[in-house]
């Protein structure tokens, strides 16, 4: 009997050595994930020790929980909580017989016996540990035909438990390395990727997505500072369904903004009670912060971390937020100091990306504006006459000079079908395509009016003054419906009958032209009978504010009429002085006696001399009419 028992022992020892070798191979085979290899470890352990059943429980220190990694026979178990004192007791023990456990563990065993038993009747626990690190429990049930372990079997059990502990620790180290490798790669990879995004919306979305993945988070958001209103405004949130859960609804932008008003954002660490406090604090202090809050109206009650988004010059552009960090097994984890470093580093890259996208957007808008300006300029220049007609008994000359962004000056001299001549000068408000289109509308409307009934002086019943007033009302209505309140045109129209030398004029809010009489005296035309600019108010309001009026002047030989836009009188010199009406009057008197083109040129040169090197932003237009 003694020989056969010795032989059996030797055979089991040989088997054990072979199984231990297999354990070692499992460990170095590359199957680092203990979730996968735990069943193999348990099978080898049970086979070596000839135990009928058992289980391996893994300890998760982040939240002091034990989870079932493997069991024979197979069973399932929800994670169970374990107190720190109980962990400390387990660390002090090597083998624990469950019928006589240490007193400090009795409560834990009683509390969880039902949960942990499952299909396994546990009899013996071996704490899994390396030095002072508790890793889990190896639990064994009945032994085949034996009441208890021999001493050498206990030693073998300790060796196997140590192997399993090494496997768990190794698995965690590898998982940690993989996780860090993943994070470093993501950090390196994300920078060029997000910097390539040229649309601010795309950049915001990618920044949040990358941050969420990088930090194993489940929610994230990007808020940028709205400088004008001193608010943080939400630009992107992940998952987007978070918005739907907002009480106020997804369209209520107010709920997605945080005031950065100094009184409201005064925060210290102890004041941080909500994510709103935290986000305002991150902007104010320019450094990463964390909080766990239940009272929150943006991200809900969540474990949050936020880092400042900075531009190239160090200005805070906004805040990057992540929340609900997770661990394997669905457990929520707290953000660590390392996570703070990570979000800080990522937020720096994100700042460059977001700034790039916004700069690109601005450049695109500027280019689009420039293109529009060029198109508008072409439209406008096509509306200005290249040459002016010869009016019998008169000289006429004009000059148009575009200066700066497209304004909207217009002048024309039109021979009327019904006889006579129409001289128009106008200045459309605003700039760019809208101004050019409004000017085109004005010109089309004017030509249409002039080609129909206006100017039929041969019909004695027609009162020219009323004709011009009617025309002004028609043009006012046309421009009012064509533009906005800010879009209007100052307009001065003159009808010249060269047979009678009667000049009938109407002023729609334009600079009054000057008449320099043959004797040198000055008359300002339309100064006392000025109406409103065209298109500023609807027709029914015009009479209530300032109705259009017309006046008539008889021109005599040598009389000079100078029409101009405010680009002349509002030209500034380097001392910020206006050229003004006084200088225009002086040069007009001085020029008296010359022909129309030379007078026009003299006035222009005078304005240019006055201007010197000062920048100008408004077009300059002159139209000169002289009775021979």
């Amino acid at each position, binding site marked *: 009997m003694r020989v056969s028992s010795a032989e059996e022992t030797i055979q089991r020892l040989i088997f054990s050595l072979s199984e231990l070798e297999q354990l070692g191979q499992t460990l170095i085979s*590359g*199957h*680092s*994930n203990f*979730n*996968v*290899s735990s069943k193999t470890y348990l099978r080898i352990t049970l086979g070596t020790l000839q135990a009928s059943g058992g289980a391996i429980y893994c300890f998760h220190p982040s939240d002091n929980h034990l989870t079932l990694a493997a069991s024979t026979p197979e069973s399932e178990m929800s994670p169970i909580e374990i107190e720190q004192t109980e962990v400390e007791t387990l660390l002090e023990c090597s083998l624990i017989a469950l019928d006589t456990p240490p007193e400090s563990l009795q409560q834990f065993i009683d509390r969880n016996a039902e949960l942990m038993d499952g299909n396994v009747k546990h009899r013996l626990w071996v704490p899994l540990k390396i030095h002072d690190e508790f890793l889990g429990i190896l639990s064994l049930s009945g032994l085949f035909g034996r009441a208890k372990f021999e001493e050498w079997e206990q030693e073998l059990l300790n060796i196997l438990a140590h192997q399993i502990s090494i496997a768990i620790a190794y698995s965690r180290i590898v*998982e940690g390395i*993989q*996780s860090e*490798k*993943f*994070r470093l*790669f*993501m950090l390196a*990879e994300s920078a060029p*990727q997000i910097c390539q995004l040229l649309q601010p919306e795309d950049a915001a*979305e990618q920044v949040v*997505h990358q941050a*969420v*993945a*990088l930090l*194993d*988070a*489940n929610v994230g958001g990007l808020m940028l500072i709205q400088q004008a209103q001193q608010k943080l405004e939400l630009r992107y949130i*992940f*998952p*987007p*369904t978070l918005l739907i859960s907002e009480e106020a609804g997804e369209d209520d932008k107010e709920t997605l903004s945080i005031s950065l008003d100094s009184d409201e954002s005064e925060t210290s660490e102890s004041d941080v009670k909500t994510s709103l406090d935290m986000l305002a604090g991150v902007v104010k202090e320019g450094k990463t912060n964390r909080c766990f809050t239940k009272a929150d109206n943006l991200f809900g009650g969540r474990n949050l971390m936020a880092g400042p988004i900075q531009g190239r010059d160090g200005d805070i552009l906004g805040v990057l937020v992540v929340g609900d960090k*997770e*661990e*394997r*097994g*669905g457990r929520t984890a707290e953000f660590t100091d390392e996570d703070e470093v990570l979000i800080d580093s990522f937020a720096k890259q994100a700042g460059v990306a977001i700034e790039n996208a916004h700069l690109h957007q601005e450049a695109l808008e500027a280019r689009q504006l420039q293109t529009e300006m060029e198109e508008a300029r072409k439209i406008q220049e096509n509306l200005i006459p290249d040459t002016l007609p010869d009016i019998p008994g008169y000289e006429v000359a004009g000059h148009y000079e575009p200066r700066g962004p497209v304004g909207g000056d217009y002048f024309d001299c039109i021979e009327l079908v019904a006889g006579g001549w129409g001289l128009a000068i106008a200045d459309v408000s605003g700039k760019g395509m809208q101004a050019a289109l409004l000017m085109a509308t004005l010109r089309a409307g004017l030509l249409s009016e002039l080609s129909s009934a206006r100017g039929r002086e041969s019909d004695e019943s027609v009162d020219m003054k009323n004709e011009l007033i009617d025309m002004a009302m028609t043009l006012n209505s046309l421009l009012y419906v064509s533009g906005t309140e800010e879009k209007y045109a100052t307009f001065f129209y003159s009808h010249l009958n060269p047979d009678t030398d009667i000049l009938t004029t109407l002023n729609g809010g334009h600079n009054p032209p000057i008449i320099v009489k043959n004797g040198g005296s000055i008359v300002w035309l339309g100064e006392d009978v000025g109406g409103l600019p065209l298109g500023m108010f609807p027709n029914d309001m015009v009479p209530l504010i300032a109705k259009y009026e017309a006046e008539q002047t008889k021109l005599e030989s040598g009389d000079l009429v100078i029409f101009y836009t405010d680009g002349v009188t509002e030209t500034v010199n380097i001392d910020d002085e206006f050229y003004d009406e006084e200088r225009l009057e002086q040069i007009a008197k001085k020029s008296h006696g010359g022909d129309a083109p030379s007078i026009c040129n003299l006035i222009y040169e005078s304005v240019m001399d006055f201007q010197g090197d000062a920048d100008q932003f408004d077009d300059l237009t002159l139209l000169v009419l002289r009775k021979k």
Partner: protein
Amino acid sequence: MANKLDIQIRAERQYAVLETAGYLNDALGEKLSKKALELIEKGYTQLVINLDKTALINSIGISILIEIIEALEEREGTLNFCGLSATQERTFRMMAIAKYAGIFPDEKTAIANF
């Protein structure tokens, strides 16, 4: 990108395709792992994971994919991925996942390369 977690399974005689939709984090990863291990238990050793509708993967998602590869390796099986974005493909290569699993542009090619 809505974070609607979903897994579609198309099991044929020789192989099975698992198609994920949403953020591959712990929640979706655990679902994927459970489905994959069930298929492996049923004897499937050729699996395709289609990530076309998964734009975002975190480190836990990666570790779960590695776990599935290891579980398949134990049965001498093969895992092929498809529908990866360029960044995901680079990540998989950097994480050495590409050493133990195939990466293909689409499901058809992934299936044809078992």
